[in-house]
């Protein structure tokens, strides 16, 4: 039947679209897909061993923590954050986070780009205050 070729064509187009992630990565990229995002810790961050909270928590909840900090600083005028170990930090992206993680390009951006996330932190914040001062 003459309709059969159109049905096969349609099925083929659908399957190419459905399998496009496989086809793109295997045929076009030929297995050269960019490797997993690797974080670079600055010597200062390495020496500190642990962030303000445990690493698994920071990995998944850092945006929440930063949001909480912003709320407390901007609305509540609180400046100090005390974690479970009793250590106290200043609630500041620029002064606390970026103090250790001064390498935004190799720390923040690696994962955010990998996961296609575009945080709006840098709409207001300087991304490297120490670099700016030099």
């Amino acid at each position: 039947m003459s309709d059969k070729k159109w049905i096969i064509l349609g099925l083929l187009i659908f399957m190419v679209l459905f399998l496009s992630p496989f086809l793109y990565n295997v045929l076009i990229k030929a297995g050269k897909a960019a490797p997993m995002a690797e974080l670079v810790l600055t010597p200062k961050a390495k020496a500190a061993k642990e962030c303000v909270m445990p690493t698994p928590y920071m990995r998944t909840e850092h945006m929440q923590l930063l949001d909480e900090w912003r709320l407390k600083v901007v609305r509540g005028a609180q400046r100090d954050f005390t974690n479970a170990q009793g250590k106290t930090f200043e609630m500041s992206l620029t002064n606390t986070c970026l103090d250790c993680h001064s390498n935004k390009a190799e720390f923040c951006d690696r994962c955010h780009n990998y996961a296609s996330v575009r945080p709006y932190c840098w709409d207001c914040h300087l991304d490297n205050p120490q670099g700016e001062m030099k």
Partner: protein
Amino acid sequence: MNKFYLSSLLAVLVLALIAWVGAPALPWLFGIVVPYLAVLCFVVGVSRRVMGWSRSAVPFAIPTTGGQQKSFDWIKSNKIDNPSTKFAVVIRMALEILTFRSLFRNTRMRMTPEGRLAYNMEIFLWAGALAFHYAFLTTLIRHMRFFLEPVPWCIQLIENVDSFFRVEISYNPIQFGLPGIYMSGLVLLGAVIFLFLRRVLLSKVRYISLASDYFPLFLIMGIAFTGILMRYFNKVDLIAIKELTMNLVTFKALLSFKVPAGISPLFFIHLLFVSTLLAYFPFSKLMHMGGVFLSPTRNMTANTREVRHVNPWNYPVKVHTYAAYENEFREKMFEAGLPLEIMPEDSTAEEGKE
């Protein structure tokens, strides 16, 4: 209580439980083997179904018409609802597939207070279906960020448009919406819940609903719910998940059979739901995705008065026409005094001419 939706709900809950309990023990099974099998099942199953349809005959021209057929020039015809050309059929199909016009025509019968029968427009099924399908499509497209590296600009564009409304609730300790809110996910969950409630609450729709109607609804509800949970409430390690998904699409997962550590069981529930949906797809009503293209009431040209549709099932019957019959028995019929179309002398004269 209804056994159809209770059994479907139970099936989805059991699936969630299987992933919850099984994934930490056997991450390679739930993270690599099951998704691959599901994709294979989907591709082979959908191809087989569609190829089966392609072999089936179309015995009758049965386009449904919603307007005047093309006839005389002075009678205004409805070119799209009663398409007489292939081009008009393409337009009709595109409108059907992209805007669900046949759902838009849904009516509800009721008695007016005066006792007259009235058909009212009932667009809520159409609105719900439109919201559901487009939200699902958007969700599907923006999930490409987990399968492509680097993420192409067109996917990022869709993400940006999808998270256009920035809703942030930040009261200590309630926090919501810091990874930007994707409209599509919330609309998807809302629409699927609406379609479910419609099935359960309207007695006429409940009467015609089976477990195979409820199961995909619960499954998609579970997919949307776990997705929203992972994004806004019980956050997961996205980088580890993308490492797994990239390993899957580049087939590296088949070499090592290793699933990155630190992936929450919630993700495996989501993944098992999606795998189930893919594997279940070819055997279910969800095949309407392919079927809508092949529905003869929509995709046939309504030119039945211009072109004769020959049933391909017709057996090649040997016919004996009246002309041949008369040729065979002319002399005898003439002698019996039966009326003839051609008299014997005429027929010999004609034969002589030829």
